[in-house]
């Protein structure tokens, strides 16, 4: 397949098909509607399952069931819709089932608005569901990167038996770029799904059970310890980030997704004015690329966290920085996108964010 022009949401859908998705369950919400629209047309035509559920809660529980049966499944939604799915997401993480959840963020809180936002960083990385669980979260900045990550996400989910969230904002969902679907992704050895609840043919007399209820506290703690060990392996193996303009920068910006694109332009503008600014662009939000912060030169004047929110990733930046550098913050929210010039000003008037 040569280069084609695709809208982010369509690309997510086609990449899911290329990634081998067997079933999609979802409920409409702007600005991600082109994902189910595209899949409704193309999954059914290929003998796969597309189902518009009666609600987000129903959809995520269908994902739970189909993932338990060993199929490659996904759902997609946007901010308030993802909020509704949290209970099911916690159950899926608890039962250690693989699935891919696409979250196309819009302005919040509450119903908010339909314009792009990054105010669901906490929702993605801290979880709205209960318990000590983690999603593996990727936040691509371009449609090509979204495609590559989508294709790989199904493998990563299967490998770790854990939900993977692909987190983009409405702009990446709605904008168009020329893309190539045939870029190869990393191959992984994936063991047989001998845990799947798909009958006893391969293990007569032994029934598999997908479950998140564990009423023996000792066993539940053991399960929690096991999950933490798994998350630690994820932290060791799956960190992804990009360093931009990191040749002795005066300041360092930390930004992901659409905000990173805006910051790239700001960095070019600053360069013209003789101010050298580098950028850490986290691609994986969990695991967070803490090690990247060790590469910031000691004499750097400060770190500016830029988000389309009132400051959520800022927490992870403060943890990763561990008091070493001054940390500032620039954010827009509610669906407002800054011009690169606003970031330029924020660097020129760098202020440490004072946490009271």
């Amino acid at each position, binding site marked *: 397949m040569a*280069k*084609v*022009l*695709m*809208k982010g949401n*369509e690309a997510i859908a086609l990449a899911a098909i290329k990634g081998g998705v067997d079933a999609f369950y979802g409920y409409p919400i*702007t*600005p991600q509607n082109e994902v189910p629209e595209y899949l409704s047309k193309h999954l059914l035509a290929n003998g796969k399952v597309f189902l518009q559920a009666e609600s987000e809660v129903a959809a995520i529980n269908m994902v739970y069931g189909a993932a338990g049966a060993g199929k490659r499944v996904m759902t997609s939604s946007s901010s308030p819709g993802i909020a509704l799915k949290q209970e099911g997401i916690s159950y899926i993480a608890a039962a250690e089932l693989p699935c891919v959840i696409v979250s196309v963020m819009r302005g919040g809180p509450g119903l908010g*608005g*339909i*314009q792009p936002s990054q105010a669901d960083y906490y929702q993605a990385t801290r979880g709205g569901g209960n318990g000590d669980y983690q999603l593996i979260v990727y936040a691509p900045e371009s449609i090509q990167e979204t495609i590559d990550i989508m294709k790989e996400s199904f493998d990563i989910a299967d490998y770790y038996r854990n939900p993977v969230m692909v987190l983009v904002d*409405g*702009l990446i969902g*709605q*904008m*168009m*770029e*020329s893309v190539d679907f045939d870029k190869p992704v990393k191959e992984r050895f994936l063991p047989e799904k001998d845990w799947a609840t798909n009958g006893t043919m391969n293990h007569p007399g032994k029934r598999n059970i997908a479950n998140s209820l564990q009423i023996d506290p000792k066993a539940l703690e053991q399960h929690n310890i096991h999950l933490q060990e798994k998350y630690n392996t994820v932290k060791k193996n799956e960190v992804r980030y990009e360093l931009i303009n990191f040749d002795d920068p005066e300041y360092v910006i930390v930004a992901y997704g*659409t905000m990173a*694109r*805006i910051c*790239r*332009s700001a960095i070019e503008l600053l360069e013209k004015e003789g101010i050298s600014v580098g950028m850490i662009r986290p691609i994986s939000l969990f695991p967070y690329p803490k090690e990247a912060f060790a590469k910031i030169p000691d004499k750097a004047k400060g770190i500016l966290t830029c988000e389309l929110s009132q400051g959520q990733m800022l927490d992870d930046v403060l943890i990763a920085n561990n008091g070493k550098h001054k940390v500032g913050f620039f954010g827009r929210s509610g*669906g407002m996108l800054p*011009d*690169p010039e606003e970031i330029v000003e924020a660097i020129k008037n760098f202020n440490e964010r004072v946490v009271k």
Partner: protein
Amino acid sequence: MKRITFLTGYYGSGKTELAINLAIQNQVDFVVDLDIINPYFRSRELEELLNEKGIEIISSDMDSKMHLDMPFISKKIYQPINNTTKRAVYDLGGNDQGAKLLRQFDDYHDEEYDLLLVVNIFRTETDNADKIIQLINKIEGISGFKVTGLINNSNLLKDTTIDDVLQGEKVLQTVSKKLGLDIIFTSIWEDIVIDDNLNVSGEALKLKLYFRKNWF
């Protein structure tokens, strides 16, 4: 350009960018935004720019609150059609669903109009002549209006070369021959370097990308 120009096409084919460019270059009086499908990048977002150029925008949103996600259409959309001294570009939503909105103009078939199909062959649903003809049939069937011409808007945004434009022209020439429709415009993004002797079908339309910011 006819007094009334309707733009239709597969969604994501570039109708809105073309509508804005055609309106500005031809100094029409109105841009009518009939897109009830797309939540982002709608012509109403450029209201200020168009007003500066003396073009009024009639939008399908209540009082141009552009971030509403409602299939609402203002009655004002009849103004340009009824006032025969005015010229207008109508920007329809994508696909046959978007073209369905033309049904409300059933009484106006006698007006001087063009219904132009915008095609980008790098959109997978319109990447060959058969698919394009199928789309035309669907649009004509659902709208009750005949497509009167084609616009070659084949591009890969920032990655576009003139060869991509010409590749689109080839596909559209096949459609043109089969259906007897002319290619009225060939759009070429202003940043593409072209040979002075280059000949394209129809009028070459230098395109400025109004929605695209430098960072995307």
